[in-house]
C-alpha cells in the first residue's frame, strides 16, 4: 500500500473533487469537511513520501507498469518531495481559512468553488510530481483553467482581469507546447530522464536552441517575470480572498520549479550556463523585477495590490539567484521557494481577514486594527519582518544565501538590488504599522463617529494565520537541518 503513495497524492484530490458536486447537491454544508478531509489525507501522503525520499533516495513510479520511455513515470526526488509538502500544506491551510470568507464573498456557488479548488490543487500536485514533459503540459492546463475560473468570480472587474490572464496564460502554455514539440521532433522522446540522456549530443542544433528559448519565454509568462508580469496585479487583487490565498503562493513558485527542472535536469548545466548567455539575461531580468516590483509597490494605496507587487519582486530574487548559478545561490533559490510560499500565504491570508472585517481594500482600512485584532496583527508583524529579512525569521536566511552566492560570483548589482528591496519593504510595512497603531491622523475626522464594530477574526480564519506565523519562525530557526537534509541534495551538480 505504501508503494502506491505517489499516485495517491494525485488521485485523492481528484476523486474527492469529482464527488464534491454530488455531495454538495445533497447537503451543502458537508462540502467544507469533505475538502478538509481530502487535503489532510493528501498532506499525510506527501509528508510520508518526503520521509521516504530522505531515507532511500529518488522514487520512480511507473504508471500502468509500462517502463519509461514508452509509458509515463512519476519521479520524486528531494526538490519534488519538498514542493509536494509545500503545496499540500498550503492548500490545507487555505481550505480551513476559506469557510467564512466564501460565505461573505460568494453567495450561492460554494459547492462549485470547492470542486474547482480541489481540481486546482490536483493540477499543482500533478505538475511537480511528473517525469514526462507532455504530462506536465496537461496538468499545467488544468491549473490554468481552474485558475481562470477561481479568479473570475471575484469582485467587480474580476472577469476582465481573468480574461487578460487567459490571453497571456494561453500564449505561455502554447509556447511551452511548441518547445515540447521541437524537442520531440529532434529526439523522439518525451520522458525527462530519457531527454537528458539523448540531448547532450545535439546541443549545437538550432532546433534545441529554439526549444530552450520557447520554454523560457513560456514559463516566464506563467511566472510573472518582469516585463511579462502585467496580468498578475489585476488578477490577484480582484479575485476572492480564498482564491488569491491559494493561487498567489503557489502558481508562480511552481513555474520557478518547472524552470529549474528544464534548465538543470532536461538540459544539463553545460548548455544552460556555459553555452548560452541565458544566465546573464536572467540576472538582469531579476534585478529589473526586484526594482520594478519595489517601486510599483510604493505607489499603491490598495494593500492587496501592494502585496501583488511584492510577489513580483520575490520572483525577481529567484530568477536572479538561478542566473548567478553557483551552488550557494541555488540553495538560496530553493530555500526561497519554501519561504516565499509561506510568506505570500501569510500576506494574502491577512489581507483576506482585513477585507472580511472592514470590507475595504485601502491602506487606511488598517486604522486602529492593532487594538481591535491583536492576534492577527501580531502574526502580520512576524510575516512583515520575514519579508523585510530580519533574523531569526525564515526570510533572512534565504536572502543570506542569495547575497552570499552573489558575492562569490562578483555580482554586486544583484546584492545592491536585494538590499534596496529590503529597505523599500521596511518603508512599505512600517507605513502599515503606522496606520494600524493609529499614530497618523487621517483627514476628514469631523463627520460623526460611525465606527464599524470590528472584532477579532473568526477562529477558522485566525488559526491558519497563526500557524503560518509559527511556521515562519520555526523554518527560520530550523533552517540548517532543512538545508542539510533536503535542499542540499536538490541542488544540481554544477
Amino acid at each position, binding site marked *: 500500500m505504501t508503494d502506491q503513495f505517489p499516485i495517491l497524492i494525485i488521485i485523492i484530490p481528484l476523486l474527492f473533487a469529482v464527488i464534491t458536486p454530488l455531495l454538495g447537491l445533497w447537503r451543502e454544508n458537508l462540502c467544507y469537511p469533505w475538502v478538509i478531509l481530502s487535503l489532510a489525507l493528501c498532506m499525510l501522503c506527501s509528508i510520508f513520501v518526503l520521509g521516504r525520499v530522505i531515507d532511500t533516495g529518488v522514487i520512480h513510479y511507473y504508471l500502468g507498469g509500462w517502463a519509461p520511455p514508452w509509458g509515463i513515470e512519476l519521479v520524486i526526488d528531494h526538490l519534488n518531495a519538498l514542493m509536494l509538502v509545500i503545496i499540500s500544506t498550503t492548500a490545507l491551510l487555505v481550505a480551513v481559512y476559506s469557510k467564512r470568507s466564501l460565505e461573505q464573498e460568494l453567495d450561492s456557488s460554494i459547492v462549485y468553488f470547492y470542486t474547482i479548488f480541489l481540481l486546482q490543487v490536483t493540477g499543482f500536485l500533478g505538475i511537480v510530481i511528473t517525469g514526462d514533459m507532455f504530462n506536465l503540459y496537461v496538468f499545467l*492546463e488544468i491549473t490554468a483553467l481552474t485558475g481562470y475560473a477561481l479568479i473570475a468570480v471575484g469582485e467587480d472587474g474580476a472577469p*476582465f482581469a481573468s480574461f487578460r490572464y487567459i490571453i497571456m496564460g494561453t500564449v505561455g502554455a502554447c509556447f511551452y507546447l511548441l518547445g515540447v514539440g521541437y524537442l520531440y521532433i529532434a529526439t523522439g522522446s518525451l520522458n525527462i530522464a530519457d531527454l537528458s540522456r539523448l540531448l547532450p549530443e545535439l546541443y549545437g542544433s538550432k532546433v534545441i536552441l529554439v526549444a530552450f528559448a520557447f520554454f523560457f519565454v513560456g514559463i516566464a509568462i506563467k511566472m510573472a517575470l518582469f516585463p511579462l508580469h502585467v496580468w498578475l496585479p489585476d488578477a490577484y487583487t480582484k479575485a476572492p480572498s480564498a482564491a488569491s490565498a491559494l493561487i498567489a503562493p503557489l502558481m508562480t513558485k511552481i513555474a520557478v520549479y518547472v524552470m529549474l527542472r528544464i534548465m538543470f535536469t532536461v538540459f544539463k548545466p553545460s548548455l544552460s550556463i556555459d553555452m548560452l548567455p541565458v544566465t546573464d539575461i536572467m540576472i538582469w531580468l531579476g534585478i529589473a523585477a526586484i526594482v520594478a516590483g519595489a517601486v510599483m509597490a510604493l505607489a499603491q494605496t490598495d494593500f492587496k495590490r501592494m502585496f501583488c507587487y511584492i510577489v513580483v519582486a520575490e520572483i525577481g530574487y529567484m530568477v536572479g539567484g538561478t542566473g548567478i548559478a553557483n551552488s550557494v545561490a541555488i540553495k538560496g533559490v530553493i530555500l526561497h521557494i519554501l519561504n516565499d510560499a509561506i510568506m505570500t500565504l501569510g500576506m494574502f491570508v491577512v489581507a483576506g481577514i482585513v477585507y472580511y472585517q472592514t470590507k475595504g481594500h485601502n491602506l487606511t482600512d488598517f486604522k486602529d486594527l492593532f487594538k481591535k485584532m491583536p492576534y492577527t496583527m501580531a502574526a502580520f508583524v512576524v510575516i512583515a519582518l520575514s519579508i523585510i529579512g530580519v533574523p531569526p525569521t525564515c526570510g533572512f536566511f534565504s536572502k543570506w544565501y542569495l547575497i552570499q552566492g552573489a558575492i562569490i560570483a562578483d555580482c554586486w548589482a544583484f546584492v545592491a538590488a536585494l538590499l534596496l528591496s529590503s529597505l523599500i519593504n521596511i518603508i512599505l510595512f512600517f507605513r502599515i504599522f503606522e496606520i494600524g497603531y493609529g499614530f497618523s491622523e487621517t483627514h476628514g475626522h469631523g463627520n460623526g463617529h460611525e465606527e464599524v464594530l470590528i472584532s477579532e477574526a473568526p477562529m477558522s480564519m485566525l488559526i491558519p494565520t497563526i500557524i503560518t506565523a509559527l511556521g515562519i519562525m520555526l523554518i527560520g530557526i530550523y533552517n540548517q537541518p532543512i538545508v542539510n537534509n533536503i535542499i542540499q541534495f536538490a541542488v544540481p551538480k554544477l
Partner: protein
Amino acid sequence: MLDFIIGKYNYWIYIILMMIGFYAMIGKRNLVKKIIGMTIFQTSIILFFVSTAYKKGGATLPIIEHAHGHGEHVGHAIEASSYINPLPHVLMLTAIVVMVATLGVALAIVIKIYRRYNTLEEDEILKAIK
C-alpha cells in the same frame, strides 16, 4: 535548394498560420477577435505536430491490418515503416481537448463581461472600470 524547400515547407506554412493567430490574439481590441486568434494559434500548433507524423513511401494509418479475431497473434510480421508514427496523433488528441476546454471557459468569461458592461471592446471596458 528546391529539395530544401520541399523538405521543410509544411513547417513554414503552419508557422505562418501560427503567427496570424498570434497577431490576432495580441493585436486586436475586440474580445471575440482575440478568442478567434487564440483558436487559430492553438489549431495551427496541432496541425504542425500532426504533420510530423507522416512517413513517405506508402505508409498507411496506424491500424494493424488483419489483427481482429486472431487472438493476440497477427499472422504476418509488422513492419514499422509501413505505418505512420502514432505518437503525435495521441498527443494532439489531448491538445485538441485542452483547446476546446480553454475556448469554453474563455467564452463563458466573455458572456459574464458582456452582461456587466454591455460592450465587447477592450478600450470601452477599461474606461468603464476606471
